[in-house]
């Protein structure tokens, strides 16, 4: 029974990691930008919820997702569009700068203490299914993630702009040569990335019950690791990497000797290093289809 319980924990944590990894992976696949400021999108969602405390949950949630989406679009427009075509190192540094700028702006306004408030507090109660006790939040996470993944899959397979984005992810210049508008696919990528960050922020706040200016930092690191495990530039890879990372984290939490558990993350990263030595290109590395003659 404890195994089933752990499995549910693992899938739910993996689902959140997958959403975070997809948010980072989407931007990377299109413009080779590792956006460390993705964490501050999550923070933006958290603080939107904080400001709207007392409103109905649904209003808070929808507002957070919308605000983060707009914030992501603004980020692209103000910070990254002027750097279009710059080399990846420049883009990476710019995203660090943006990340710090946003964190410290929030620090100035709200201070450094984590602030607690209620958002979806009821979901932290467990629901009993037979002899299982599953937190309601975990069920919500799994359901919402499944719907989001399904929606994204349909979007990328069926819609014209989705197909254009897959083409741009594979070969950006060639996509432009067939008429794909660079500004448009990049803007849509940021909007989707922001939406995903919005959903992640709902989870972070519902689970932790508080917001602080550093609340997105850990998640963006996890997202980055997950997308590397999955194979950088591959969206299915990012999702898969997220799930794997969630499963490994929960498994270590469950099976490590008691006195080692506080250092769980050290073991997670140790395994990550070992994984990179074994398969540096990730699980679903993009094959060089183009090399074939």
């Amino acid at each position, binding site marked *: 029974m404890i195994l089933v319980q752990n499995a549910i924990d693992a899938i739910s944590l993996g689902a959140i990691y997958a959403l975070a990894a997809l948010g980072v992976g989407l931007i990377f696949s299109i413009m080779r930008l590792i956006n460390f400021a993705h964490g501050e999108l999550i923070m933006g969602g958290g603080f939107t919820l904080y400001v709207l405390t007392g409103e109905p949950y649904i209003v808070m949630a929808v507002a957070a997702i919308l605000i983060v989406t707009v914030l992501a679009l603004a980020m692209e427009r103000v910070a990254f569009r002027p750097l279009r075509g710059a080399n990846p190192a420049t883009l990476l540094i710019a995203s660090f700068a943006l990340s710090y700028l946003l964190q410290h702006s929030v620090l100035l306004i709200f201070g450094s203490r984590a602030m607690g408030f209620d958002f979806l507090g009821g979901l932290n109660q467990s629901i009993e299914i037979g002899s299982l006790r599953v937190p309601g939040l975990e069920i919500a996470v799994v359901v919402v993630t499944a719907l989001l993944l399904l929606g994204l899959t349909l979007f990328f397979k069926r819609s014209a702009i989705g197909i254009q984005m*897959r083409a741009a992810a594979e070969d950006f210049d060639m996509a*432009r*040569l067939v008429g*794909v508008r660079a500004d448009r696919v990049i803007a849509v990528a940021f909007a989707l990335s922001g939406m995903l960050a919005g959903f992640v922020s709902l989870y972070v706040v519902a689970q932790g019950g508080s917001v602080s200016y550093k609340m997105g930092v850990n998640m963006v690191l996890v997202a980055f690791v997950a997308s590397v495990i999955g194979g950088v530039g591959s969206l299915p890879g990012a999702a898969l990497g997220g799930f794997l990372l969630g499963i490994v984290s929960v498994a270590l939490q469950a099976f490590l000797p008691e006195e080692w558990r506080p250092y769980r993350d050290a073991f997670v990263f140790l395994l990550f290093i070992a994984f990179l030595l074994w398969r540096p290109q990730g699980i679903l590395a993009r*094959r060089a289809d183009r090399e074939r003659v």
Partner: protein
Amino acid sequence: MLAVQDLHVSYGSVVALRGVSIDVAPGEIVAVIGPNGAGKSTLMRSIAGLVRPSRGEIRFQDSAIAGQPAERLVAQGLSLVPEGRRIFGSLTVGENIQLGATPRGDRRAAAADMERMLTLFPILKERFHQKAGKLSGGEQQMLAIARALMAAPKLLMLDEPSLGLAPLIVRKVYEVIAELRKSGVTVLVVEQAVHVALTASDRTYVMNAGAIVMAGRSAELRGTPGFEDAYFGAGPR
């Protein structure tokens, strides 16, 4: 149709084009030949809007287009099939062809063109739902051409369409190019395969070391004194 005047392009401190001028009249097939590194691909990429020239003028259908982004030029009727074909390998054959119609507003005309492409290239119909990366080199070249034609181009530019293909396939590619001309498409083709280019085109420019070193009617060029020197020589200093 296309007029390039005194085009200069540099990559950092490396000069790739030093004052190239060519022109292409409507309905013509024009070839640009020259050895590796002569600047042929750079010329194509600057016309298509992927490379910004440092100096010079490019006119397409009597409007200046130098410096305009690629996605806008393709909407105006200028399509490039780049070197190495660059099909989207992780997408299906059908998605690749469909992507070619991105700049077009008229969905119905695009759908009709899709049918036309599948008749012109039956192999693509057979492989419609397969990943394009699984196609052979020749099939990929057909796909790349079909994709470019979906934009209904007035000027089709092809960069080394014969590269890496078996002679039989090369012939098929150039048969298609001849067909296109009959349907009113103007063609500018870059080739390293001299014989193929001279046979298929009306006029030919010879490029070397970033400049045009010779030009003339393709049928006459081969016998012209100095042709081999122009092709194999080091070019102007």
